[in-house]
């Protein structure tokens, strides 16, 4: 049975020590994480920095938005060909304005989808968590497939100075 354990710390340094301890004890990099109520400078806990692909999302969205808006603006003019002053049916500059807006709109929507996806949300299983994290406490969470190494993890957390350890 999988188990989730959280060690709570009041200061950043012991939390970073716990992260180092878990690494040294041979726990897999993805199996433990640090939870904070505010962003900390990158690497403050010696944490594993995850790779992300967020920048691909707006580019992908913008391509879709551009294509759809090109079709929309061209098709509406061709469907109702109103000749104005003997000029071509497709009014490029007017099309560009609407295409620009819709390209940006699709870019923004896909960025938001990207942020949510890359944040691994929605996260239906909260696992081990404590409300004091949003009051400035720092949580070091370990997710284990079975209970065989639970004692090792608890020892590391205690050794680093965890104020409290909770299991879920």
């Amino acid at each position: 049975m999988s188990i989730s354990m959280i060690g709570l710390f009041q200061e950043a340094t012991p939390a970073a020590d716990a992260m180092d301890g878990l690494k040294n004890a041979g726990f897999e990099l993805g199996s433990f994480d640090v939870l904070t109520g505010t962003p900390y400078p990158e690497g403050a806990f010696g944490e594993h920095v995850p790779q992300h692909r967020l920048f691909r999302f707006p580019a992908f969205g913008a391509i879709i938005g551009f294509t759809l808006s090109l079709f929309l603006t061209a098709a509406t003019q061709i469907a109702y060909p109103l000749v104005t002053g003997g000029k071509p049916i497709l009014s490029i500059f007017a099309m560009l304005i609407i295409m620009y807006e819709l390209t940006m709109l699709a870019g923004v929507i896909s960025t938001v989808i990207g942020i949510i996806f890359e944040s691994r949300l929605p996260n239906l299983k909260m696992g081990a968590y404590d409300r004091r994290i949003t009051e400035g406490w720092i949580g070091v969470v370990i997710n284990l497939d079975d209970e065989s190494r639970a004692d090792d993890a608890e020892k590391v957390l205690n050794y680093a100075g965890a104020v409290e350890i909770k299991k879920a």
Partner: protein
Amino acid sequence: MQQKRNLSQEYTNRVLLNGTLQTPKWWAPTVAGLGFVVLIGVIIIATMINRGLGLTGLSRPVYWGLFITTFVFWVGISHAGIMISAILRLTQAEWRRPVTRAAELLTVCSLFTALVFPLIHAGRPWRIAYWILPYDISRGIYPNIRSPLIMDPVAISTYLTGSTLFLYIALLPDLGVLRDRTTGWKNAFYTLLALGWKGNPRQWQMQTIGGILLSALMLPIFVSVHSIVSWDFAVASAVEGWHSTIFAPYFVIGAVHSGVSAVVTMMALMRWLWKWDDFIRPEHFDALARLLIVVATGWLACTFLELIFALYGQDAPEIALREMQIFQWPWNLLFIIFMVTGYIIPVPVWCVKKFRNNIAIMFWTSILVNVGMWLERFLIIVPGLARRTPFVFTWEAYRPSPVEWAIMIWSFAWVSLLMLLFSRFFPLVPLFEQKESQVFTDDIQIGRAKVPAIVREVE
């Protein structure tokens, strides 16, 4: 002197959630009062839609009046959010922290309100569907994409959607805080909205990078929106005073002037009403006032450039219009009030540090700016149409009717009501931004002085 407050995360939560987890005594009566005004406004709007635009003072040749003036005004106010949030976020301005959420919210509420005015101004709002939606009706007529009246709804809808999503993404960490401090249906509500936010490094990284990315995407939209609004007028070549090439930048900078002033008004109210003295401090007003001096002066330059462009062309109708706007009763009185409230009083006041740090003075000067900026829009829109020109077969002076005034008052009550309702469920100051400021700041010793130093991450 450097200002810094050492505030714990627990204290930050407690104080900044004082209007969300508890109901302030003034909140319910204020909401009830605003709700009453909104209800009256809705009844008046419904009556106008039922009886027709004859209830307004609009008549040929003045077919755009108070409604369109108020529409442009609210679109202008909406520029506060992105100006403050995106630009200051991109430049990592430290003083942005207590301001961003309120500014973004102001954007969403004012844009939402602005959208109502073209709808009701059309007389029969349901016909807007024929105008903007590309679907095949029986006559095979599609929207004319060459018209700014199509570009406008597209731009404003883009801006409204983007701003709303921007506001929501930045709310996620605070929704987690609220989820942790509520029970019952409220807990279920925040749990649903927080999407399971935990605050791991991956999520924080996405907040930081995503915030910057969204800011960078929203900035060009923000510039385009008011440019397109200005083209509603600028492409009307038959109306003097409207077909000016400076209109797009002029509208954008005017919008920033009124929008940032509205943020100042809101910041002062937030400090007074929710007692957030530790978070919204005189230094924030000082920084906003410095920004406003630059923006207001740029806006003044555009105002004079618009006049110079008009006069330099030696076009007799254009010169006649300017003469009417500036020297003829009652436009001259409005012009004087507009200049005095939009620039002549506020900017010299903001040049004095003592006044910039005085929140009451900042509040009243910001109100003055928006009185002036509303009049500016009125003076751009109405005189151009009202001037008597040759070969016009009907001509009537424009006097806004009580119905128009009432709907304008409704819009102010509506925006205030929306913001107060938001404040009851969500924090108006971003909690995590405040806490981040504490984590990323430390005192360092330089010689004999101890100064706060801010950590900045390189992306």
